[in-house]
């Protein structure tokens, strides 16, 4: 069956990638075709410089202004309707930087009616915010539930994903993926990092997302996601995990620059360990309002249990104000208050962008 499927997919890739000649007129090159005349891909750099004040004395980032991440993006077409996107990043991990392939994938944009394929290292299509790069998110830090159930950088895997846009009058897309994520071992890390949870080894994911226009100026997006795999410390814990997610996003555009967004994601972790089962929940709710072309403000509420037998709950509220200088350059002030620890964090973030930078519809 696999062989048959593989042949069919290859056949459709071939049949569907005929290039139709454009008229003899100079039309605008697409993003990914800007490097003329020297055939360079689109090259861009995104930087994230963040200052942090914290009431937590053990926080390494406390009272410092640090470069959190520098991302270099190389994007271009490698064949008609096949493009490659490479995002290389230098991430700060406490005192040092670590080079990382943030994402590197090839997209077969159209295999056959509604079907596309991506292969490589990818921010997995799971929920609404996981696939959005940190510098594109409307807040400085990742929602707590995402960190508790998928780790510091969310769910990022090496593998393949198929996306199918269903032949319906409404937008409805199914994404299924098979991934390989590296596991972790306690002896490789410090004690604190050993306490992080994530998915590892063979990871299987699925997502169904749909959108319903509620009128000319509003839209409701609904999604359901699932991920199944071993835990990231499988060798020590012998655990299997499934994370189910449901997301709901409402957007309203009262005028050309004003936008209201109400985004919610709920996660449910089922973790089976030799001594029993854990059933953990987490969610975040974000309400944002863009006042005009340059300013927006938002509130995010986080509530999450952790993924360990000793259940610790996080309960926090964040207030965010963002000034958008350009599409990729923003200045953001964010204040978090953790109700459980009675602690606060304040961030002043500058995200800057140089060069043409693009991401798929998210």
């Amino acid at each position, binding site marked *: 069956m696999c062989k048959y499927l593989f042949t069919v997919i290859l056949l459709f890739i071939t049949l569907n990638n005929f290039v139709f000649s*454009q008229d003899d007129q100079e039309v605008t090159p697409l993003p990914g075709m800007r490097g003329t005349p020297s055939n360079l891909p689109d090259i861009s750099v995104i930087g994230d410089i963040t200052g942090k004040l914290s009431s937590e004395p053990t926080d390494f980032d406390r009272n410092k202004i640090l470069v959190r991440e520098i991302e270099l993006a190389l994007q271009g077409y490698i064949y008609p309707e096949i493009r490659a996107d490479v995002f290389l990043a230098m991430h700060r991990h406490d005192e040092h930087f670590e080079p990382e392939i943030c994402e590197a994938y090839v997209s077969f944009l159209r295999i056959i009616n509604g079907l*596309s394929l991506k292969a490589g290292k990818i921010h997995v299509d799971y929920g609404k915010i996981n696939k959005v790069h940190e510098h594109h998110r409307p807040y400085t830090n990742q929602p707590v539930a995402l960190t508790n159930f998928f780790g510091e950088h969310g769910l990022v895997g090496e593998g393949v994903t198929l996306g199918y846009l269903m032949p319906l009058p409404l937008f409805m897309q199914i994404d299924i993926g098979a991934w390989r994520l590296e596991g972790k071992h306690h002896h490789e890390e410090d004690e604190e990092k050993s306490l992080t949870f994530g998915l590892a080894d063979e990871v299987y994911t699925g997502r169904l997302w749909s959108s319903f226009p509620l009128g000319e100026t509003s839209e409701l997006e609904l999604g359901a996601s699932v991920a199944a795999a071993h835990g990231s410390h499988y060798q020590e814990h012998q655990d299997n995990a499934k994370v189910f997610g449901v997301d709901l996003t409402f957007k309203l555009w009262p005028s050309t620059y004003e936008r209201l967004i109400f985004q919610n994601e709920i996660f449910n972790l089922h973790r089976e360990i030799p001594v029993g089962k854990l059933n953990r929940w987490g969610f975040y709710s974000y309400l944002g309002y863009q006042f005009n072309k340059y300013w927006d403000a938002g509130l995010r509420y986080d509530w999450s249990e952790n993924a360990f037998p000793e259940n610790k709950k996080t309960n926090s509220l964040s207030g965010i104000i963002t000034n958008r200088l350009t599409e990729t350059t923003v200045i953001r002030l964010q204040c978090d208050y953790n109700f459980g620890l009675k602690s606060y964090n304040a961030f002043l973030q500058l995200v800057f962008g140089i060069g043409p930078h693009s991401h798929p519809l998210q």
Partner: protein
Amino acid sequence: MNKIMLNILMIALLLPTNIFPSTKLKVVTATADLADFVRVIGMDKVEVVSLTSGNQDPHFIEPRPSMVMKVKNADMLVRLGMDLDIWMQSLIDASRNSKVSYGGVGYVDVSGKIDKLEVPTGKVDASMGDIHIFGNPHYWLDPENAKPILETILKKLCYQLPSETEYFQKNYKEYLQKLDSAIVVWKKKMEPYSGEKIVTYHNSWPYFAKRFGLSLVGFVEPKPGIPPTPSHIVSLIEKIKREKVKVIVMEPYFILKVAETIAEQSRSKVIVLSPSVGGIEGIKTYLDLFDYNINKLVESLKN
């Protein structure tokens, strides 16, 4: 079981993109102006949907999943190009519709035959503001530019529906006549104001100004896309007084307050013109757009 699953999968993949087929050619456009152009040539043989309305800033459109379906179901996609509708690309990719993707039979970028203004010759970067590297993209605001746009659309429509070539050509010629007559009227109305200096909020009107002999002497934005600073406002007020500028032209989506303050202090007047069809109530066609804008401008300059 596997065989059944495989058959279901294959049937799903082979289903037509649109399960509710229509005999009309489905066209999706970036703007309402382009939709009007397609409509006047295609008439009852086409079904046109614009992804934006005229009261939206074309630089600032958020792609929505519902738009993906419009692109997915389209036989033809008409875009302005020159990076003004760069937001369309994620929709085209998400639609997985080969017909309307770059190089596809239904992909139309109407900027190809335009004589472009303000094409940067040196290095371009964000220190210059939101500069379009392929030139100023507001070219449809010169009614003469409607002609190459219409010609490009005609060519693609005839290619898509060859049996209707005669019909499309007839509609195209009739519309060109109407457009030519209207251009004569608009030019005549603007003639007394040739050389008149104007200030605009954003650099959206160079094609319009060139066609009707107006002189653009300044912008409320210090650089494209950059909000006005106090020092720029002060210098602009001085410039308006010095150059004896009578009007500051705004688009309906920009905030009037700053321009009104400038106008008040420089004894000029703010007028809101529509950059696109549907930008102001009552402007339903491309011809209406110029009728409105020319009349409004003439009325303001006269006073």
